[in-house]
């Protein structure tokens, strides 16, 4: 407290006394300031310290041009979707009611956004404080991941404006989907709250931020609970589809498989994304050694989780007594998923950790992420209705929307990271979160 008062005092007095720490930047909210101060704040925080003109100019980058092109396709398709319906935009049929938007945007989106709860629990509950720098990016990815999962869902639902119905108006308590709906809605809120400290630091709202930090442990526990429930429940949805999903993928263990693979996906995404953000944002070059150390630690965890997941996959197979199916084309496909995208990254991770090769861990994590995407698509699309003559192949418009949503996710991640203290600690605050 005293510390804060002192530091606020410093903020208020313009010329810093020689020995006193000078604020590197003034995190003063526009509230209660003169107009020019608000404008200055806007310019500093929203336009990244540039004039509007310079800012607009600076937006012309190759990535942004590609993104703009994607939006140029995606926005008209969005309009078609909501004015002419699902039939005009998708290849969905009564036989394959779920397509790319559920299979990729929702199922993969949720699995890959699991990093938030994995990292938060590692640091806040299990005391692995070394990993603190990875928590905020993971939570931000998690929040944006879920947010865009919901956006994807809005495209897919026949009547998206009824989204709150299952929650408040007409709950169908016997449905696994009902559980998913509640958990995702609550978890989205939890992640927003978990991210609040960063946002409040950015705004300079000290007391709010204090409250947000105070809630951390409770939120983390709640977040882990909700994640456990809905990650497994997403698999549980498919319990209702025996005979439609290929027997090699259908199993009463499917909720457990979904949960285990989501943890593996979450860890791998954290590695993958720290690799990307360090490239893209060219930040913390000097702490490379530290990053490598953390990456190796995560690689170790990933190896263990993948081993468990690998074992569960075989257990599920043994339970279903479907050995002979392994020698069919779908069997080879299953073996490719299980050996090439679970066992291989598991062994690669183990080898890399042993020989301290962080680069190899990153590679293994990329394979893991691809493997989990493959698994979700196998269950929801590729082996769904495996014995039917007609196959579902997504329409190009479905791809356009999916790509647009991913792009929007990346753009939001980038603009938040550029402004709020996510990859770095905020210099004016103790690193409490």
């Amino acid at each position: 407290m005293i510390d804060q008062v002192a530091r606020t005092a410093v903020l208020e007095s313009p010329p810093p006394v020689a020995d006193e720490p000078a604020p590197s930047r003034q995190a003063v909210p526009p509230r209660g300031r003169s107009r020019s101060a608000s404008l200055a704040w806007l310019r500093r925080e929203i336009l990244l310290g540039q004039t509007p003109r310079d800012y607009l100019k600076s937006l012309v980058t190759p990535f942004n041009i590609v993104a703009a092109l994607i939006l140029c396709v995606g926005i008209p398709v969005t309009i078609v979707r909501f004015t002419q319906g699902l039939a005009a935009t998708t290849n969905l049929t009564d036989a394959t009611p779920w397509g790319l938007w559920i299979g990729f945007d929702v199922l993969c989106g949720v699995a890959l956004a699991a990093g938030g709860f994995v990292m938060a629990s590692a640091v806040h509950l299990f005391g692995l404080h070394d990993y603190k720098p990875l928590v905020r990016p993971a939570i931000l990815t998690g929040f944006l991941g879920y947010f865009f999962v919901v956006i994807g869902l809005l495209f897919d639902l026949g009547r998206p404006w009824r989204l709150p119905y299952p929650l408040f108006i007409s709950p169908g308590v016997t449905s696994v989907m009902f559980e998913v709906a509640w958990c995702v809605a609550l978890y989205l809120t939890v992640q927003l709250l978990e991210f609040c400290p960063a946002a409040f630091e950015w705004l300079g709202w000290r007391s709010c931020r204090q409250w947000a930090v105070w809630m951390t442990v409770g939120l983390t526990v709640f977040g882990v609970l909700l994640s456990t429930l809905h990650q497994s429940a997403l698999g549980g949805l498919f319990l209702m589809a025996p005979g439609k999903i290929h027997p090699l993928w259908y199993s009463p263990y499917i909720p457990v498989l979904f949960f285990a693979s989501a943890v593996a996906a979450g860890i791998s995404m954290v590695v993958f994304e720290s690799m990307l953000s360090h490239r893209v944002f060219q930040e913390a070059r000097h702490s490379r050694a530290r990053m490598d150390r953390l990456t190796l630690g995560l690689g170790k965890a990933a190896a263990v989780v993948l081993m468990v997941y690998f074992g569960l996959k075989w257990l599920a197979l043994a339970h279903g007594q479907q050995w002979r199916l392994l020698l069919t084309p779908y069997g080879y496909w299953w073996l490719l998923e299980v050996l090439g995208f679970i066992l291989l990254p598991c062994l690669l991770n183990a080898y890399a950790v042993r020989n301290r090769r962080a680069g190899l861990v990153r590679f293994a994590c990329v394979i893991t992420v691809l493997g989990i995407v493959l698994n979700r698509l196998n269950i929801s699309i590729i082996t769904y209705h495996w014995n039917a003559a007609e196959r579902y192949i997504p329409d190009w418009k479905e791809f356009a929307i999916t790509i647009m949503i991913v792009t929007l996710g990346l753009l939001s991640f980038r603009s938040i990271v550029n402004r709020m203290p996510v990859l770095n600690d905020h210099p004016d605050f103790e690193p409490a979160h």
Partner: protein
Amino acid sequence: MSVSRRDFLRLAGAAGVANLAAAQAARASAAGPANPEWMGMLTDLTLCVGCRKCEWACRQANGLAGEEPIDAYDDPSVFANKRRTSGLSLTVVNRYGSDAAGEKPVHVKTQCMHCIEPACASACLVGAYRKSPQGPVIYDDSACIGCRYCLIACPFEMPAYTYDDPLTPVVRKCMMCVERIRDGASRPACAEMCPVEAITFGKRNALLTLARKKIAEHPDKYVDHIYGETEAGGTCWLYIAGKPFEELGFRTDVGTTPYPELTRGFLSSVPLIQTIWPALLMGAYAFTQRRETLARDSGASVAPPTENGSEKPESGRAVAVNRVAPSDDNPSLPSRSRPGRVQGRGSDQASQTRSESTPPEAES
């Protein structure tokens, strides 16, 4: 009585109250006789001639009739492909086997089976389906959000979705003409239309007796199986046929377990997770806290600075001081130039200083 009991059990199962007992009781009730008051339909596939007049009648009754005259339904070319129910055809007739083989083709009329424990109803997250006290499974679009999970769940793949409707898409499926009958009709439109009386409407129990009697009287004519008696826990729509059902496009792998049973175990584990998980996690947290406190008390100087976190403001402040210092050279405007780059803020160096300096230095 058994409806309310079953509903109660389903709720109890979902809420996880006495889940094992509930699951067992539910299983027992599904295997036992269904509600004797339930109505059902019996389709005798040996009688059906494949005239598709029932399709026409169904469309008329449900207000889905197009321009097509009734004669158009005589066109046999539709039998070239197997069709399934759709948003426009709540019942479809398919042909199995051909005249060429010298044997009589069999025509199979399909529609919602009106399951005793409907998968669609247990899957719907807004409760849009319900098993009515008379037996038919009724769908009401007033809360349907269009997730189409019911289409995934139905073991017989009967519900269909009107994908081409942008604003008010709905699920469509046979409702056993519930409204017609309420309005005084003696039986559903298809049964009324059928020229050969292949479809019988009546109490499910009576239909079962009738079916058994037919099979017993003509063992040469029928295979000894009533499809729907136990399939997926039993259905209100029943079939008897002269050929094995797997040859007639029926799903024979649906088992005898009611489909809601498939997720009941999972759902009843939810309260278990809800109680055990937080306790375990809080336990882990308490353990970690305790360990850290002990470690701090016994040798605080060796603890890395990141571990101090918010609990120790003194050292936190020291760290902050150290952290901010390097950016003194440009206190007013952080040097940020391009988006896509995080520069300035002094935090790059700061985090390094923080992570690589030890507390004794910082406190100096």
